[in-house]
């Protein structure tokens, strides 16, 4: 019997099949409907560019509704959450995100308060320790001078 599909050809066909299937996956992902919850999860991470301290999901203005719709369109087109955020930052500036996008600025924003608080604690502890140490040294000095001083002891004995 003649084998019409040798193993090598069979493997090649299987590989092509999986490759084609893999290539269709992004298209399949894009056809999934983007729900309001999907949009609001991302909108919660963005601030309204024109209303102070209001996240995009909570903002009820017409402008915010347009921006939420834009998030939906971008997600539908296959953009990742970070890509949507980057687009908003590029368009509306840094204030649409709660923290700076630049890694150095973000590190500074997070690190500076910790550094400041840490320094305050260290200085506080050192000051307290120095204060306790000085107090501890001062007390025995007077006690030793009063006990070990033979002249003083002699006077006290004479007074008795």
């Amino acid at each position, binding site marked *: 019997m003649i084998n019409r599909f040798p193993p090598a050809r069979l493997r090649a066909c299987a590989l092509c099949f999986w490759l084609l299937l893999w290539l269709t996956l992004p298209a399949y992902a894009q056809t999934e409907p983007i729900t309001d919850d999907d949009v609001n999860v991302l909108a919660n991470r963005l601030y309204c560019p024109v209303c102070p301290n209001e996240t995009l999901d909570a903002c009820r203005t017409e*402008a915010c509704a347009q921006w939420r719709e834009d998030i939906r369109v971008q997600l539908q087109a296959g953009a990742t959450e970070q890509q949507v955020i980057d687009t908003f930052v590029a368009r509306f500036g840094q204030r649409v995100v709660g923290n700076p996008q630049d890694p150095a600025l973000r590190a500074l924003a997070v690190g500076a308060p910790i550094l400041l608080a840490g320094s305050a604690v260290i200085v506080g502890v050192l000051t307290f320790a120095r204060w306790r140490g000085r107090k501890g040294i001062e007390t025995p000095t007077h006690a030793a001078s009063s006990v070990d001083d033979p002249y003083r002891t002699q006077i006290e004995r004479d007074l008795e």
Partner: protein
Amino acid sequence: MTDSDFLQQIDPAPEPIRHGGLSVGSIVLITGVVLFAAVIGIALLRQQQTQPTSGQAPDFTITTFDGQPFTLSEQRGTIVVVNFWASWCAPCREEAPLLEALWRDYQDRGVIVVGVAYADLDNDSRAFIDEFGITYPNGADIGTTISKNRYHILGVPETFIIDQNGNIRRFFFQLLPDSAGGDDDLFVKIASVRATLDILLAEAETL
């Protein structure tokens, strides 16, 4: 041992108090507090900055929705009316036809009207331009750097009239039709803006 030695021994002179010689920790803490105060101070100052109403107009460059670059400093010799607007802004919708009328009347007399779309999506901006048949150049303020960092606008609409030398000569919030009930320095009738433009054009002719 003399009596003075004795007194010195039982009641030694107090150590002089040190005022200098801060520890490293104290220096770090003080530096941190000073930096923190500086950052807060700068932020507060920036928050209090308002629109420039006189002096040299901050320069900017935008790419119009037609793809043409527009740089304010390249317009010296002409009067420029810079209007900040957004498609989601209701007063901007009332103002747009008036600005278009102004532009049509004055474009051949050395006046340029330019629109800067603030915090707006490109598609919405284009739809707004089409809806009102706007023909003067318009472009998006990418990153809102022009509106917030240079002109410090509080909202939209806001308009600046810049003279032939690049100086801001008038600022107002909204342009109103002449039939509107009342106007003031910030909500101005179109006749008042025409008068301002005529004065600036006359000034240029006398020079």
